[in-house]
C-alpha cells in the first residue's frame, strides 16, 4: 500500500505566530489544472486589525535596531530562502509557472533580498543632508520610517513581487502587514515560515491571505497605518485607496507595473518611498 501523504494546513502570519483566521472562513487554492491544493484562510478585517496592533507594537524597536543588524537579518532571510529553494520552485510551478520561470523568480527573490540587505546602512547617506543654512545653526535632515505600512501585494510574481516591496519597506525600519497575491497565496505563507526562522522580530512582517476587494478598504482606512502600498492597475481600486487614505493622511504608493523581474524593479528609491524627512536645527554659537 502506498503511503498516505500528509497535507499541510496553511494559516496566516500575525505577530510571529501562525493563527487561523479568527473568522473561520476559507477559500480554495487550486492548481493550474483546477485540483484543490489547499484551504487558505479568508482573512477578515479583524485579522487585519490584529496584525496592525502587532506591527505597531514592535515598529519603534525595529526602527531603533541598528542598520547593520537590520541588514544582517535581511541577509539571513535570503540564506533561509536559498536553503528552501526547491520547495518554492515547486509551489510556483503548481499555479502554472514553468520550471525555468519559477527558478528565475526564486533566484531573483533571493538576490533582491541581498540587494536591499546591502542598502540597509547606505540609503541614509544617499538621501539625508546637511543643509548649509545662512545663520549660525547646524542643520541636518535625516530619514525616518513612516511607521506601519500596509501592502497590497501584486498578483503576478507572487513571491518576487511581494519581496520587492517587503524588503525595501522593512529595511527602512517600517513594519508591514501584507495581503498576499490572490493567485498564489500559498507561496506567501511558505515565505512567512522563512521569515519566522530568520531572526526577524515577531510582528515586523505580517502576512494575510484573503480577498482583495474585501480587505482593500481596511488596508487603506486603518488610522494606525501610516502608509499604504497598492500594486495593481485597477483604476477604481486606486481611486478608493486614494480617497479613504485621506482620513489620516496616509502616504500612498501606487505601483501599476505588471512585472517585478526587470532591471528597474529595485532601487533605493523604493526605500525612500516609505521614509519621512526630519530636519533638526541647533545653534552653533555659544
Amino acid at each position, binding site marked *: 500500500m502506498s503511503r498516505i501523504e500528509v497535507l499541510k494546513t496553511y494559516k496566516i502570519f500575525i505577530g510571529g505566530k501562525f493563527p487561523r483566521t479568527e473568522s473561520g472562513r476559507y477559500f480554495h487554492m487550486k492548481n493550474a489544472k483546477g485540483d484543490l491544493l489547499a484551504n487558505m484562510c479568508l482573512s477578515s478585517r479583524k485579522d487585519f486589525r490584529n496584525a496592525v496592533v502587532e506591527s505597531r507594537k514592535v515598529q519603534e524597536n525595529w526602527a531603533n535596531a541598528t542598520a547593520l543588524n537590520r541588514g544582517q537579518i535581511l541577509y539571513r532571510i535570503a540564506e533561509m530562502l536559498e536553503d528552501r529553494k526547491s520547495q518554492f520552485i515547486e509551489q510556483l510551478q503548481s499555479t502554472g509557472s514553468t520550471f525555468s520561470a519559477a527558478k528565475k523568480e526564486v533566484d531573483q527573490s533571493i538576490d533582491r533580498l541581498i540587494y536591499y540587505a546591502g542598502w540597509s546602512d547606505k540609503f541614509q547617506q544617499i538621501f539625508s543632508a546637511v543643509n548649509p543654512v545662512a545663520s549660525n545653526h547646524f542643520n541636518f535632515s535625516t530619514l525616518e520610517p513612516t511607521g506601519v505600512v500596509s501592502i497590497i501585494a501584486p498578483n503576478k510574481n507572487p513571491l518576487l513581487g511581494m519581496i520587492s516591496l517587503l524588503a525595501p519597506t522593512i529595511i527602512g525600519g517600517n513594519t508591514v502587514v501584507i495581503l498576499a497575491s490572490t493567485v498564489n497565496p500559498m507561496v506567501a505563507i511558505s515565505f512567512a515560515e522563512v521569515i519566522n526562522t530568520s531572526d526577524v522580530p515577531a510582528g515586523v512582517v505580517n502576512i494575510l491571505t484573503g480577498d482583495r476587494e474585501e480587505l482593500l478598504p481596511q488596508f487603506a482606512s486603518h488610522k494606525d497605518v501610516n502608509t499604504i502600498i497598492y500594486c495593481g492597475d485597477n*483604476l477604481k481600486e486606486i481611486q478608493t485607496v*486614494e*480617497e479613504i487614505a*485621506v482620513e489620516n493622511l496616509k502616504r500612498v504608493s501606487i505601483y501599476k507595473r505588471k512585472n517585478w523581474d526587470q532591471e528597474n524593479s529595485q532601487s533605493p528609491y523604493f526605500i525612500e518611498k516609505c521614509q519621512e524627512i*526630519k530636519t533638526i536645527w541647533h545653534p552653533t554659537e555659544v
Partner: protein
Amino acid sequence: MNKIDINKSWNYASAAEGTEHIQLKSKYDLFINGEFVKPSSKKYFNTINPANGEHIAKVAQANKEDVDKAVKAARKAFKSWSKLEPKERGKYIFRIARMIQERAKEFALIESMDGGKPIRESRDIDIPLAANHFFYYAGWADKLEYVFPNKSPKPLGVAGQIIPWNFPLLMAAWKIAPALAAGNTVVLKPAETTSLTALKLAELIQDSGLPKGVVNIITGAGETGAEIVNHSDLDKIAFTGSTVVGKLIQRSIAGSKKKTTLELGGKGANIIFEDAAIDQAVEGIVNAIFFNQGHVCCAGSRLFVQASVESVVIEKLKDRLSTLIIGDPLDKNTDIGAINSAEQLATIEKYIAIGKKEGADIYQPKCQLPKKGNWCRPTLFLNVSQSHTIVQQEIFGPVLTIQTFRTIDEVIEKANNTPFGLSAGVWTEKGSKIFKLSKKLKAGVIWANTYNKFDPTSPFGGYKESGIGREGGLHGLKPYLKFEL
C-alpha cells in the same frame, strides 16, 4: 527682586516706518499670461489693513473661466519653459531674486500693511527669505540630475498653488521657486486677505521679462481655490493651509493624475527641561508662539515645562510678556502686530472662551491695545491637560497652553499624542537629551535650543496629518519632478 518699570521710565518713542514711497494701485487685476487682465466676473473685493480697518485696494475675484484661462496660459508656456536651456531658466529665477532684494523695503511695508505683521518681521524675515528662496532654487535649474541620480527626472507640467495669509510673499516664493527651477509652470492663488504682495510680485515678474504664462497669479477666496483644485489640466496641486482643507483637496483629486504637496496644520510641542538655559528658553517660548501673532503652522503652541522649574519659567515668562509691545505693525518697536482678519480674531476669541469654559487658568498682560483694528493680547493658559480643546486643536493665534512633566518618557508620550506632526522644540544643555528627543518626536522639524528658524536650504514639512512632502532644500525639489521608478 526689583524690576525695572519699563512703562514708567523707559517709554519708546514712536518709530513708525513711512509709506509715502510705496507704489500701490487702487485696483488690481489678474495676472494671466504675462498681462494684468480684468476678471470675467467683473467683481472685485476689498483688501483692508487689519491694524486700523482702512481700505487699501480692490482686488479682482477670479472665477472658473479665469482659472481656466490661467491654466491654459501656463500649459502653453510649459512647452517652451520646460525646453528652455536649464541654465537660462535659472538666470530668470536669479533675476527675480535680485529684483525682490531691490524692492525689499516696499514689499516689507506692504506685507505689514496688508497682513498686520510687525515690520521688523517682514523686513528681517519674510522678504529676505523670499528673495533667498528664489536665489537658492535658481541654482538648481541646471543641476536637476543630481536630485534623483541615475533617473533623469522631468518636470511634472502645470502646478496649481494655493497659499495662506500668514507669510504671503514667503509662501509664494516657497511655491514658485522650486516649481520653476524644475521646469514647471504655475497658477498661484494668494489668500484673499493678503493678495497684495503676490500682486506686487506679479508686477515684478512682468518687469523681469520672464516668458509669458510661466507664472500666473490669480486672486480670490476659497471658491477660486476650489476651481484650481478641480481643474482637469493640472499635474500638481501644492497647498499650504489648514488640515481640514488639505484633506478636502486630497480627497477631491483621488484617482486623478494630480500629485500633491500639502503643508498643513500643527500643534507644536515646545519642551523645556530643568537643565535648559532658562532665560534663553523663555525667549524661545516667546518666539515660538508669539512670532507673527502665532499665525504660524509650526508655532510652539503647547509648552511642556519640567515640573522642577515650572514656577521660575512661568514667572520669567509673565515678566517677559509684560514687556512685549503690541500695536502698529509699521512701528519698528512693535513685537506683536495685528491679527490678520476679523474672522481669525473671532476664531481665536472662540478658543479663548472655550479654554476658560473648560476650566483652564488664563493669563494676559495688561497692555494697551489700539482702539481700531484686530488685536489679541498674548495669552497663556495654565492648568491645562491633554484633553483640553485648546491643547488639541490648532488655534493659529497668540495663545499658549502650558503643561508640566516629570520624566522624558512622559513628555515624549504627551508631545506625540496629537494627529499633527509638524514641529517641536527642545530646550536642554545636555546633548544626548537633544538627540534622544529629536529621534523620538514625531515631527518634520525639530528645533533644539532655538525655534521658528527657516532657510531655503532646509526642508520643511510635516509627519502625520501635518502634511505630505517637503518644501525647501533638495527635498523640496523632489515633489516637482518625476521619473520612472
